[in-house]
């Protein structure tokens, strides 16, 4: 079901619901790498990504997927990472991206 507001729409599954509980896997992911909460999806990580030249690898999107509960999709996309660490150097929020991806890829 799609709600209509001012000419653009929000998919049901993407609507923000603050009451919904976090999936247990996501909770444990955030516990293992607390700095993930700091991500504001600015996109720096994707701009410098070595793997991003060849594959669809954008770290901030992985995090957004995780928050939306699309865990399966996230794990699949995380497999492209080379762990080179460029993203971490460019992250303005100090997210431990390499560790986060390692954790994501084995959820």
């Amino acid at each position, binding site marked *: 079901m799609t709600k209509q507001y001012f000419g653009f729409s929000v998919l049901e599954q993407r609507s923000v619901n603050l009451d919904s509980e976090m999936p247990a896997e996501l909770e444990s992911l955030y516990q293992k790498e607390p700095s993930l909460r700091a991500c504001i999806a600015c996109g720096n990580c994707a701009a410098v990504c070595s793997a991003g030249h060849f594959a669809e690898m954008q770290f901030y999107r992985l995090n957004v997927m995780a928050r939306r509960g699309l865990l399966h999709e996230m794990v699949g996309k995380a497999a492209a990472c080379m762990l080179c660490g460029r993203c971490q150097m460019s992250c303005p929020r100090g997210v431990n991206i390499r560790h986060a991806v*390692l954790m994501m890829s*084995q959820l």
Partner: protein
Amino acid sequence: MDSKFHPFVLPFSIGFALMLAVLTVRYVIWLRGLSSDNRKRIRSNFFTVNTWEALVEIFRESLVHLKIYKVNPMLGFMHMSLAFGWFLLIVGGKLETWYYTGDFANEMHYAIFFRYFEPVTSGFWMNGVMVFFMEFALLMVLTGLILALAKRIRKKLMGMQNTTRHSSGNRIALTFLWFIFPLRLFAESATAGQHGGGGFLTANLGAWLFGGDSAASWELPLWWAYSISLGLFFIALPFSRYLHIPTEMVLILLRRWGLESEKGFNPNKGLQAFEVHSCSSCGICLDACPAINIGQEAFQASYFVRGVRENSEVEAKATSCLSCGSCTAICPVGVDVEQLRLDKRSDIFTKARFSHSYLPGSMTLWRDTTEVVLFTGCMGRSNPKTTVAFKALLKEAGLSFVHVDEKDGVCCGRPMALAGALDQSLMMKEYNSNLINGQNGQVLVTSCPICFKYFTEEYNLNIPVMHHSQFLWELMKKGKIKRDSRDLKFAYHDPCELGRGSGCYEPPRSVLAQLGELLPVDKERDKALCCGNNLGSLSLPESDRRQITARTLAVLSANEPDYIVSSCPLCKQTLARQSSVEVKDLAEILLETKPLRVKVPSYSYVHQEAGR
């Protein structure tokens, strides 16, 4: 006294027998875990000169502790007095009984408690030598003990900033150990005071303390106490850090026979078990660690190995570490903590499945010969100044080059290996190998020490690999790049992967020494501090990394250099974001000191990324 037995020897005898039994069981289990290759190595090397060399090393390291001497003479003396002194007491005791009874095969307790059974001995001049020797050895151990006590009370007296915080079990074992030698001194003195005999220590102390008739009742209790403390220590030994005493000797033998660590994380069998249990928690690695006292949990090698030994949770300890290699470089036992940590990481991240099957083919069919194949690596692409400078220098030297990862590069695979996922970097390795091998070049030069280490160790390329600092020094030696010395002061930062990782300390220093004054740094070469952002660290929070960087910068800028110079893109960026002194790469410095005022090429980040 005719009898060679008294009930007080029982605690010692029982304790010693129990220790032997437990040790035998544990060692048999560990040895059974050796791989078949390692067993073959033992068989083929057993009757070779290697065994003799191992015995020499056991004498030098397990008894005299020469490596600790080199790190810290006071600490070395302490360890030597305790270990070598005790060894002399044991050997001397055996010789004593042999000399006085003419029988070598005495019971053990007879040699240990010799002075109780034979207070007064007589003989020719040899008797005096024997008595003096034993007293001297005892004095040596007691000196070591006093130093050890002083270290407990005030570690700075022994030149240590940090010492291992021992677990309670180890503290109990330590207490027994400390009681042994003063009790021996007092027991022998009591006997000497009552029955005569003794040497320069015990005769005098005995006459002073235990001379009167009233002191006769002291003698036996003291011998009992001595025996009990020995027995308790021996019972505690196989379950405490003192297991390192016998295990280190076995480890030295196994290493000299050429054994290699079994694959994977198995700290309870095979060579890894011997390695893990050889760590004495001496704490020398603590002062060397750039991350000491940083973070919520102490993850230094000493604590990590102890955790592994005790089968406790070491996940955070394994993933927080920077993998800078300082602890492995300084370890007097030579425990390969780095490898152990990587094995643990691969154990943690077993479920991580990376797939790089999306990588395109990188085979080049034909190319004209080029002199230099340049590989700047992932971090290098975030560091265009270095790349631009290095290319300008190549032009200055008149060399042709091809920059293979200018537009898009694939990671060398080392970061993957540092996360314990060595086998998952295969596709990246294949891509890069094909790319480089197809260039028809003469030498591969990389400006990234991480790539450099991995290319030299794991790749099998058809051309030699050089780090750009080595290559630039070669060019300067050949006179292809000429520079005059200037009034500049440099502090050089050793990247972990280049220095300790690849043993390359001199070339960058030689280059800088030509350009100006190279300032001494408090911790350099194999003792250099990590910039704080080594790719080895996975879970260490950003705030902790920044603390490490600040510490390293304080050491580097202590002598007020004009520039802090590094030759690693990662170190450079990490240091630069917090430094008040300008941080530059070696190539940048070399280009900027060019004598004629030539326009330095403009740096364009956009240009670098334009090929996407």
